[in-house]
């Protein structure tokens, strides 16, 4: 059952040139840190080279041919991203640098306009700093209260008292998939209850949109934030999805060139959506390459990618299980089907950083540390965890390399 899926992942890996390049120690690169940033397929790299070498020009203003071509490609990429998450209109996709900037956009515009003393923002205990710090600051600026949905030790959310938490809440801001534990928030259960209580819902989808089919209309979320670099696109490009009526009612975020309709010495009128939120020359090349990444992932099939990640996660959990006798502890939901392709763990008294250093000698790249979720780490009383994360190009051979490197770490630290 697993073999055909794994064979396809091995074929997919060949599309990613970096995966064929050995490390400085001559080891095969075993990249298990896609939750931090994914690798890029040749098609995405080619798109960047093609833009810069064939039609590099500023958009939305040039009348000459290559400027028109750049503008068309830039807006076509927006349409591809809109289709990728099934947004109703391309105008509902605002380019940002990343998830963090998308969340800050909502905080600085909708948040400042709509929140005040007596209101509440509801988030969860498992958030990445990107979906926590902006709300802390918004609460302190507006006098709104910041509340938390409790998380169990495996990262799943306690929803028993959700209705009480929703009383007075104007915004629910939560991650779809935890970057530390891989736990998946039941949006289909939370969103209707939030709406019934009069709250909007913002989803940090940095760890879900790259890995599983996500339909913003089916989920009925109000805002959704995504980073391109975690889904085969370049760094420096991400997007905010927002329902059109909400975006239209929001004031602009950054202001200046490109986001205006008319400017006089004493007054300015703003451009229509989506450009109202895109001040200054946009990240044209990376946006266009983001479109290519969406094409690439759609061709592979998001349903297949989700299925593959469940299988590779199940395989990894199975291979790690025997280490439990020597003190390896895996965190997060027990069943692979209940989690994203992320496994955080600790191994006996080996600190995660030491583990990552030892694995690196064998070309195995894992993340170690607090994963930008310090409050969660404190709650769980983990000084740090090691984290292996998977993507469409992760193969069983990669997991086998991880296991072999862990054996080596056990040897170095004399753990028997």
């Amino acid at each position, binding site marked *: 059952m697993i073999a055909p899926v794994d064979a396809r992942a091995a074929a997919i890996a060949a599309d990613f040139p970096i995966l064929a390049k050995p490390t400085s120690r001559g080891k095969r690169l075993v990249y298990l840190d896609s939750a931090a940033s994914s690798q890029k397929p040749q098609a995405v790299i080619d798109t960047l080279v093609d833009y810069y070498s064939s039609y590099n020009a500023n958009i939305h203003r040039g009348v000459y041919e290559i400027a028109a071509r750049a503008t068309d490609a830039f807006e076509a990429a927006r349409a591809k991203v809109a289709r990728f998450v099934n947004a109703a209109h391309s105008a509902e996709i605002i380019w940002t640098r990343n998830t963090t900037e998308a969340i800050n956009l909502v905080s600085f515009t909708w948040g400042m306009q709509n929140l005040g003393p007596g209101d509440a923002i509801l988030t969860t205990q498992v958030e990445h700093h990107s979906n926590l710090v902006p709300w802390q600051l918004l609460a302190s600026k507006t006098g709104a209260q910041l509340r938390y949905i409790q998380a169990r030790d495996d990262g799943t959310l306690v929803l028993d008292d959700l209705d009480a938490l929703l009383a007075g809440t104007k915004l629910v801001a939560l991650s779809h998939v935890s970057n530390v534990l891989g736990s998946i928030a039941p949006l289909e259960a939370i969103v209707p209850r939030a709406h019934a209580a009069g709250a909007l819902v913002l989803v940090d989808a940095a760890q879900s949109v790259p890995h599983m089919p996500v339909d913003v209309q089916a989920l009925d979320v109000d805002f959704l934030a995504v980073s391109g670099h975690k889904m085969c696109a370049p760094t420096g490009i991400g997007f905010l999805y927002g329902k059109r009526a909400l975006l239209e009612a929001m004031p602009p975020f950054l202001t200046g060139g490109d986001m205006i309709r008319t400017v006089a010495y004493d007054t300015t009128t703003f451009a229509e959506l989506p450009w109202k939120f895109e001040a200054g020359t946009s990240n044209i090349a990376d946006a266009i390459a983001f479109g290519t990444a969406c094409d690439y992932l759609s061709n592979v099939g998001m349903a297949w990618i989700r299925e593959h990640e469940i299988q590779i996660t199940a395989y990894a959990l199975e291979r790690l299980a025997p280490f439990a006798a020597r003190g390896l502890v895996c965190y997060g939901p027990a069943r692979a089907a209940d989690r994203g392709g992320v496994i955080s763990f600790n191994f006996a008294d080996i*600190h995660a950083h030491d583990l990552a250093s*030892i694995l690196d000698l064998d070309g195995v790249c894992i993340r170690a540390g607090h994963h930008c979720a310090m409050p969660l780490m404190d709650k769980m009383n983990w000084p740090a965890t090691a984290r292996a994360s998977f993507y469409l190009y992760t193969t069983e051979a990669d997991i086998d390399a991880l296991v072999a490197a862990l054996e080596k770490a056990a040897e170095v630290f004399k753990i028997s």
Partner: protein
Amino acid sequence: MDDFYKEYILDHYRNPRNFGHLDKPTAVAEDLNPLCGDKIKMELLVGADGKIADVRFSGKGCAISQASASMLTESIKGKTLEEVAHLSHDVVLENVGIGISPTRMKCAMLGLKVAKSAALGEIATWPDEAAT
């Protein structure tokens, strides 16, 4: 790096020397490495002869940061605060041996940074120093 985790590094990691707290330290400082969450606190006791008579460190973190801090406590006993304040990275590199990768250098140097800041903080409050 290949052989960085030598026997004595693991020994200092698992059996840190001078680990704990002093009743009445002369100088104290603590810091963390926000990248990895390593934390170290250093407490120094200066004797009547102006030299460090006792030292304790506490904290948690990776083997490199903890072993390096443990070895440093042994190196600075008997030194004056001025000497500690002016210690260079070499003292750590000599203690832990060669082969720390650049990505882990901050872990290795955390104990030194904290010890120096404890010493400097105490020196800065001396009346004759404050006047200059």
